[in-house]
């Protein structure tokens, strides 16, 4: 039975926390734990989610949880897994909830190591495209043109000007059994991928876009719409890597106007038409490449 709003368990395992209204990260974790269940061990490095989940004695996480060193989400997951296995535990899931920086920057070494070890663990990168917990600074997954607090938009600096690291492909290049991209704006696709990761007999990785109204300067009730729009305008793709093959889950014939997506967000307010053109060219180049390589 496919997981959807009707079949998803009612039990909440992450609630009563202090995340901002309309937080994509909190939604991603809430949905993931509904799929993975109560016998989960969540490893959440210092980020917004651990900040709102673990402030003693206010404990809104209803599964086992641990804050690992920032750089070592996946290594702590490996240790938890090895410990549980050695003690004879069965029927449990080790899951990491790291942000974009905790995955693609400081957490990359240990993520790579854990895939190399073939540890059966689920690494979920919730990508809100900047270091939000410390006050919106640029990460390796911050897209071109984003204004952040350490990549300001002014005369000399034009926001963050490097492209997003291709973290999904970097992970896939390890030959990981299962990797996927997802978006909280497409929850059924996300749930399906969580289910696959749960049943994967080895390491799995899900890179889920998790919009951040606070950091993106968007209304807090826009979370789902803006996530969905990122996919529809082609700035985010839904894909899987399984059995050594890439697959596009959604290959739109036409994209919605990129300008509509960009102009809704305060973080892009400084971008001019040339920037939009550049972003569009980059988007088209990405799609030309992945359609060529990933669509049979």
């Amino acid at each position, binding site marked *: 039975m496919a997981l959807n709003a009707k079949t998803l368990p009612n039990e909440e395992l992450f609630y009563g926390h202090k995340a901002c209204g309309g937080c994509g990260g909190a939604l991603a974790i809430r949905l993931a734990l509904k799929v993975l269940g109560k016998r989960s061990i969540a490893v959440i490095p210092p980020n917004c989610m651990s900040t709102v989940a673990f*402030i*003693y004695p206010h404990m809104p996480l209803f599964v086992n*949880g641990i804050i690992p060193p920032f750089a070592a989400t996946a290594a702590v997951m*490996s240790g938890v897994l*090895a410990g549980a296995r*050695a003690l004879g535990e069965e029927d449990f899931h080790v899951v990491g909830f790291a942000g974009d920086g905790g995955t693609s920057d400081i957490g990359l*070494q240990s993520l790579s190591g854990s895939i190399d*070890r073939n540890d059966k663990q689920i690494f979920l990168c919730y990508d809100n495209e900047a270091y939000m917990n410390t006050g919106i600074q640029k990460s390796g997954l911050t897209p071109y043109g984003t204004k952040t607090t350490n990549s300001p938009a002014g005369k000399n600096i034009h926001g963050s000007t490097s492209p997003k690291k291709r973290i999904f492909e970097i992970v896939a290049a390890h030959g990981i059994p299962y990797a996927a991209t997802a978006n909280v704006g497409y929850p059924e696709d996300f749930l399906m991928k969580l289910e696959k990761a749960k049943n994967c007999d080895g390491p799995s990785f899900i890179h889920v876009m998790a919009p951040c109204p606070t950091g993106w300067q968007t209304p807090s009730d826009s979370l789902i719409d803006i996530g969905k729009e990122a996919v529809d305008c082609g700035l985010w793709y839904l894909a899987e890597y399984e059995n050594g093959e890439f697959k596009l889950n959604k290959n739109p014939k036409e994209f919605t106007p990129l300008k509509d997506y960009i102009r809704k967000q305060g973080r892009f307010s400084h971008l001019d038409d040339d920037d939009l053109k550049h972003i569009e060219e980059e988007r088209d180049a990405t799609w030309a490449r992945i359609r060529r390589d990933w669509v049979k």
Partner: protein
Amino acid sequence: MEKLFVSGDEAVALAVRQAKPHVIAAYPITPQTIVVERLADYVEDGSLNSEYLYVESEHSAMSAVIGSAAMGARSFTATSSQGLLYMVEGLHYASGSRFPIVMMNANRSLAAPWNIYGDQRDSLSQLESGWIQLYVENVQEAFDTTIQAYKIAENADVMLPVMVNLDGFVLTHTYEPLIMTDQETVDKYIPFARYSNAMNLDDPVNTCITAGPTYNTEFRWQQQLATLKAAEVVDSADKEFGELFGRSYGGMVEAYRCDDAEVILVTIGSVTGTARVVCDAYRAAGKKVGLLKLRCARPFPTEKIAAIVKNAKAVGVLERDISFGFEGAVFSDLNSALKQQNVNVPTYNYVGGLGGRSISKENIAEIFDALLSGKAEKPLEFINLRRDINYGA
């Protein structure tokens, strides 16, 4: 009783095999490497049934054993020098969350200048990390202390990580006879029970949590109490070990020929062996010298040291580290301890053995002579310093 001829590293690996950790995660670094190689051999030949994790760095090695200990599993890692420094962040996670991890550290110098040989600047720079720090003199003590480390770490009133320090090369790579303990008695000495603060799949636990200003001080106070408690447990674990196996080391400190000693030299680690020989020679010549071997640098044996040295005329501290711009870390601690205990004995600091330079019997004799003659003046002296290339002085 089985008698072997092994190196310090091999002795540690043999002891770990008898302690049967559930999880081993370690990253190779000279001169620790043989420990992880032997443990891999034991896992391979089936004589050790541990999960052996190949990690990509020392930071991940420490993080992995934090994860396994958080799950309630007995865990082991080993490192040295730069590797220990790369773990530093995790050291505080482990002690602050009260994970009783045992780690072997091969004492080695720190870059720069690069150097793979022994001194104790690596571990002594981590006195504030919340780990119990033990130092050993020889191969047998390395073996015995590694087993004792689990007894101390997993004590219900302690629940703290323990670092067992062996001098790089001088001890890690030196072969000496080793009397093995029998497995059955070791099992009795350190029976395993899943840690009470562990995560639990049937009744979820959150660990390594955040504690803000309202609670943080109380967490730290508890940590301080547990670390102070560990002082008693280091002693009792050694005593119980002695009753079972016929060998013990004095617990926190060993006082060697100190009873009527006019001067006492404090030593840490393998140099104690050299100092013993000199001490015996001086005693044979009627000179009243003694040795105080510091086995445990954290918790610090304040009362014990004060009681041992209180009637001496002079105390020297010989250590293989320096806190630049001040003095050796152990010397500072000793002075503070004596002040706290109202013991007023002149103290002198001898820094030597840096980057693997040997400390000879002659070097130690010179220290004893200076202390005995009352001519020791400088509060701190670099011993065995090559004046011919010392451009700064």
